[in-house]
């Protein structure tokens, strides 16, 4: 399948919207779930977009911009997964792997911008000092505009420009290689989950992880809702338990305080 010029431009336009959304963390249109679906719709294969969206969303579940870090780019990953699956006819799991270089390229561009935009701070200080609010607002929005344009250009070039060489590359791949990409696509969510655990797992949470794992292994249900409900129940049990404990500690402290006070009184007599 071929991506037409109009489709390439539309994907570029959508990348601008999603790019701004990611920069500001607004409506989460930048998550692969939405990016893939819209890209699929633009290419005329909505179902492919939705399926790729589910897979890519999970692969990127742990790759989050927490604390000002910058993960491999979810927008380029989402767009290119759908585009490569569409143009080469490979499965979405295979295409996730092929899309990865584009995603990492964009990650490094954004990292460069984080450093580059530091040059604006001096000028912003001057505007603030002189209370030139209009100029301040314009300059503080400039990075967003630059980022938006970068997304549009990058997405268009990757989607429209790179499709022929990518197609040639993919078609010349032996079966074991493309099968390898597919396996990797299926394992990839493990990296995301590992990253999530890196930020939140402590020894005391391991039992909960095992409970969730075991529940999902043996509860045969279409989605993860039962596991989420079990998790919610456990969280509430712990919350009330903890609350009671804090209250008891407070009461105990108050009792000790009043006891020592009355002791002081008797000593005084």
């Amino acid at each position, binding site marked *: 399948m071929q991506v037409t010029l109009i489709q390439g431009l539309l994907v570029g336009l959508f990348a601008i919207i999603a790019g701004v959304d990611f920069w*500001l963390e607004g409506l*989460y249109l930048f*998550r692969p*779930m*939405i990016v893939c679906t819209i890209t699929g719709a633009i290419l005329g294969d909505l*179902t492919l977009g*939705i*399926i790729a*969206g*589910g897979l890519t969303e*999970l692969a990127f*579940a742990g790759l*989050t911009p927490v*604390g000002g870090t910058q993960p491999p780019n979810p927008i380029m990953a989402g767009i290119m997964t759908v585009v490569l699956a569409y143009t080469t006819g490979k499965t979405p799991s295979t295409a996730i*792997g092929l899309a990865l270089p584009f995603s990492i390229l964009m990650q490094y561009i954004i990292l460069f*911008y*984080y450093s580059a935009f530091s040059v*604006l*701070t001096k000028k912003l*200080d001057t505007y*603030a*000092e*002189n209370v030139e609010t209009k100029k*301040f*607002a314009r300059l*503080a*929005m400039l*990075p*967003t505009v630059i980022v938006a344009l970068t997304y549009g250009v990058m997405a268009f070039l990757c989607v429209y420009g790179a499709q022929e060489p990518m197609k040639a590359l993919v078609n010349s791949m032996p079966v074991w290689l493309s099968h*390898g*990409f597919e*396996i*990797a696509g299926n*394992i*990839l*969510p*493990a*990296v995301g*989950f590992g*990253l999530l655990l*890196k930020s*939140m797992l402590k020894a005391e*949470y391991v039992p*909960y*992880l*095992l*409970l*969730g*794992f075991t*529940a*999902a292994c043996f509860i045969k249900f279409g*989605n*993860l*809702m039962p*596991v*989420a409900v079990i*998790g919610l129940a*456990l*969280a509430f049990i712990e919350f009330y338990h903890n*609350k009671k404990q804090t209250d008891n500690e407070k009461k105990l402290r108050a009792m000790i305080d009043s006891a020592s006070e009355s002791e002081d009184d008797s000593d005084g007599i």
Partner: protein
Amino acid sequence: MASNTPTETGRGKLTKHDVRVLGLRSIFNQSAMNYERMQADGWTLAMMPALKKIYGDDKEGLAAALDANLQFINTNNYAAPLLMGLEASLEENGEKRSTIDGLRIALFGPLAGIGDAITWFTILPIVAGITASFAKQGSILGPLVFFLVYAAMFLARMPIAMLGYNAGTKAISKIRENSGIVSHCASILGCTVIGGLIATYVQISVKTRIHVAAGHSISIQTEFFDRIFPNLLPLAYTFLLYYLLKKKNVSPVVLILATFVLAIVFSWLGVL
């Protein structure tokens, strides 16, 4: 200005509408993200109309407030409207500059922790896990539910800002006291769901068969691993990655590439 009725301290008063607008403007928090002072420039851009209204003709006060807000800040994007609302109420009451700045600096870290624990480590895995199961079957319900959840979260910035504005100074001790327990409980929920996600969405299946007798072979996957415990390999591999990320400080990009190399090698060997 009729709406700019001075408070006892002689400063302008914000209406409910102003606070809601402040909540929506908190979207600008990352508009000028940079390594020097992270969100501070965008933070100030978001606060600007509220500060302008509060300070009115007091240009000197406004300049001092803008300058103070331009110092380093880095917090969670849903905690930002809470902190902005809180700061707006303090500015309005004419608290001392040092008090306001001290509180903002003291609170953005803990609020980032609790906000990240709830939004990125709990809500995202749950929403992603549930909507992906629809999406993988090609159902539009997946992306649709995903979009609706996050549209609602975006609109929640308005009540969150209002919450911060109304809470005022008495909220600070409460935030400090409860942030620990709330992120603890969010972590429990998050870890339970991630356990489920590992079992559901990481797929490793060994193809190798062992020949036990002529014309008879057993599959390592179904006759061995699956009999011990289902999804044993996905759990083991996730823990290996966790270990490398946490204890060895390996970069995630390296692990992604290593996963590809391993997958391709095992595919070539015919093991996976």
